[in-house]
C-alpha cells in the first residue's frame, strides 16, 4: 500500500468520524424516539406519534410556510444582489462601500431579529417617529410588520442577513470569471447592454453560484432565532415548531417533535442529495 492512499484514507476516515457519525447517531436516536422506542416517558414501539403528526397537518402547513418564506427571501436577495452588482460594481470597489457590505456579515441572526423588531413593531422606532410626526395617534394604528401573517419581518431580516453575502459573492465571480472582458468582447461584436446582461452576466453568475443559492435556501428553511422573534404562533417555521413540540408540557407527546425533526431531515437530505449528486455526463450530448 502506498503512502498516498493511506493519507487519502485518513482524510475519509476523519470526514466519516467527524461529519457523518455524530449526525447519523443523532438521526437514529431521533428516529427511535419518534417511534417511542427510546425516551423516558415512552413505553415501546408505536406508530401513534407519526399518525398524530401526519393527521394534524400542522407539519405540512409549517413546511409550506417555511418553503414559501425561504423562497421569497432567497429570490429577493439574489435578485437584488445581481442588480446591485450589475449597476454599482465600480462604486462597490471603494473602501467605504465594501466596508458597508462586510458589516452585516458580522451580525448574527438573533441580533438582526431583535433589531428588526425594535424598528418595525407597533411600539418601535418607526412607530414612535410616525407618532411624533402625527401620522398616527395610537400605537395600534401602525401597520402590522412583525409577528404578522405575511411574515414581513422575517423576510426582511433574512434579506438583511444574506443579501450582502450574495453581493460579495457575485462581485468575486464577476472578477474571477472575467465577465468584464467577455462583456467588452460581446459589445465589440455588436451586443446590446440588455443582451450582455441576459446572455453573459446572468448565466455565468447563476451557474457558478447556484449550489450556494440552494444551500442558503436550505439554511433559511431551518432558521430558528429570526422566526422565533418575529414569527406568529401559527403557522410557524419548522425549527420553531420542532422546538415547541420537543419542549411541550405533555411528556407523552415529546416524540411528536422528533417525528417532525425526522421528517424535516429526510426532506432536506433527499433534496440535497438529488441536487448535488454528480449528474452522469453523456459525452457529446446537447
Amino acid at each position: 500500500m502506498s503512502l498516498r492512499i493511506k493519507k487519502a484514507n485518513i482524510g475519509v476516515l476523519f470526514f466519516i468520524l467527524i461529519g457523518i457519525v455524530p449526525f447519523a447517531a443523532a438521526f437514529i436516536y431521533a428516529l427511535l424516539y419518534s417511534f417511542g422506542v427510546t425516551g423516558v416517558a415512552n413505553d415501546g414501539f408505536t406508530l401513534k406519534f407519526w399518525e398524530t403528526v401526519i393527521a394534524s397537518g400542522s407539519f405540512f402547513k409549517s413546511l409550506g410556510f417555511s418553503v414559501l418564506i425561504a423562497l421569497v427571501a432567497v429570490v429577493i436577495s439574489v435578485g437584488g444582489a445581481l442588480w446591485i452588482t450589475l449597476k454599482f460594481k465600480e462604486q462597490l470597489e471603494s473602501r467605504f462601500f465594501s466596508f458597508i457590505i462586510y458589516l452585516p456579515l458580522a451580525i448574527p441572526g438573533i441580533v438582526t431579529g431583535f433589531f428588526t423588531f425594535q424598528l418595525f413593531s407597533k411600539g418601535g422606532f418607526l412607530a414612535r417617529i410616525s407618532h411624533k410626526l402625527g401620522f398616527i395617534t395610537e400605537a395600534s394604528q401602525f401597520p402590522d410588520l412583525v409577528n404578522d401573517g405575511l411574515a414581513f419581518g422575517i423576510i426582511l431580516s433574512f434579506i438583511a442577513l444574506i443579501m450582502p453575502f450574495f453581493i460579495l459573492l457575485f462581485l468575486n465571480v464577476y472578477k474571477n470569471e472575467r465577465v468584464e472582458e467577455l462583456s467588452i468582447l460581446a459589445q465589440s461584436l455588436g451586443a446590446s447592454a440588455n443582451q450582455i446582461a441576459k446572455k453573459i452576466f446572468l448565466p455565468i453568475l447563476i451557474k457558478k453560484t447556484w449550489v450556494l443559492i440552494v444551500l442558503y435556501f436550505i439554511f433559511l428553511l431551518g432558521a430558528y432565532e429570526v422566526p422565533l422573534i418575529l414569527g406568529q404562533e401559527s403557522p410557524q417555521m419548522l425549527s420553531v415548531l420542532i422546538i415547541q413540540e420537543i419542549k411541550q408540557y405533555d411528556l407523552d407527546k415529546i416524540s411528536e417533535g422528533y417525528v417532525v425533526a425526522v421528517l424535516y431531515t429526510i426532506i432536506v437530505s433527499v433534496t440535497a442529495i438529488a441536487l448535488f449528486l454528480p449528474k452522469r455526463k453523456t459525452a457529446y450530448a446537447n
Partner: protein
Amino acid sequence: MNRIRNILFGFLIGLSLLGCGEKSKQDDEQLKSATWQEIEKKSEGKTVNFMMWQGSTAINDYINNYVVPTVKEKYDIDLQISGGQGPEIVQLVMGEKQADIDEGQVDMVWINGETFFQLRKVDGLWGSFVEKLPNSKFIDFDNPFINTDFQQPVNGMEAPWSINQFAIVYDSQKTSSPPKSIPEFEIFIKENPGTFTISNDFTGMTFLKSLMAEIGGSPNALDGNFDENKYQELSAKLWAFINESKQYFWKEGSTFPKEQSKMNQLFANGELLLTYGFREGSIEDKVLSGFYPKSTKGYAWENGTIRNTNYLGILHNAPQKAATMQVINFLLSPEAQLKKSDVDGMNSNTVLDMSELPPDWSMKFLDAKKREFGPSIRELELNAITEPAPEYMIRLYEDFRKHVIEN
C-alpha cells in the same frame, strides 16, 4: 498487545465508575435516616449546582449578592447558579436518565407545579427530604396552598420557597374600572379593541383556568382530580367565548404572544391596556425601575385567580444531596426569607407562618416596608383559588392551539 491493555484499562475504569454509582445510591438512602448534624458535616466544602430561572434582575441580585456569599461564609458551600426553567430542567433530567448518569450536572432546581408533575412522572426528584430540614418547623404544612401543588400532594418531595398569586395589571390613569368578570370583560374589549391578548404560555393558560373556573360557576369549580366530562363541557364554552371575542383582541386575535414577558412590553408601550402575571403581577419592581407608570395597579378576578407556591427540589441524581439540603434549609430560614421579601429587592412573599416564628422574627416581618404600587398577597386573599390538576393545563395548552390559534 497494547490494544488489549487499553481495552482492559477502559473496562476497569468503567467498572470503578459503576461502583461509584452504586455507592452514591447507598449513601443517598443513608441520608434519609441521617441526623441533621451528620448532614451538616457531609455538606462542608462542597459545591452545589442550582438551576433556576434567571429572568429577573431582582431575583438574580438576591441570589448572587446575598445567598451565594452567605452560604459560603456560613457553611463553606460553593453555590453555582445555572440558568434554566421548567422545560430545560425536564430535558436535562430525561437526557441524564436516558444516559444512565448517576451523578448529574445539577443538584437543586427551582420549580412549580407543572414541572413537579413532569419530574414525578419520570421519577426525577429525590426525596422525601423536607421534614429533615430544621427550618421546616416554621412552615404550616396544613395550608392547602403549600401542601398541595397542582392538586398533587407534595409529600416532602419539594420545599416551598415563595407563595404568590396571579394578578391582572392595569394603568389606573388609562383605565378607571378594569374588568373583573366575564360579562365586564366582554364590554371592556368591545370598548377597547386590540388592547388585550392571551400569551401562549404557562401564564396565559393560568388566565384561561380562571375563566374556566368562572364558567364553571364557582372558585372551586376545577378542584379535585381531572374530570374529562367537566373539562369537555367547560372548555367548549371557553373556546366558543374566546373565538367570539378574539376579533377584539390584539391583532384581531390572528396571533398571540409566545410569552407573557412580551405582553408586559406591549403593556409598557401602550399597545395593551391589560397584562397579567404571577408574583401579584410583579408590578413593584417594574414601576420602581420606570418600566411601568406609577399609576399601575393590580387586582384579582372576582371569581378568583390562582394562588400557588413555588418550590425547591433535589434531583434524583444530585451529586451533593447533603449540601443541597443545607442550602435549602438556609433559604427557608427567617433571615433569608425576610431578605427575600424586601420590597426594594426580590419582593417575594414568605412561606413562613408568622404564628410559628419566634416573636422577634415575626415582628421584623410585620415591621418591614410595605409595597407602594403592587397589591399585597393579603389583599388578594379573598379571591384566591387553588391550582387545578395538571391535566387541565396539558389540555388547555393543546386545545388553545387547536381551537383558537389554528382556527
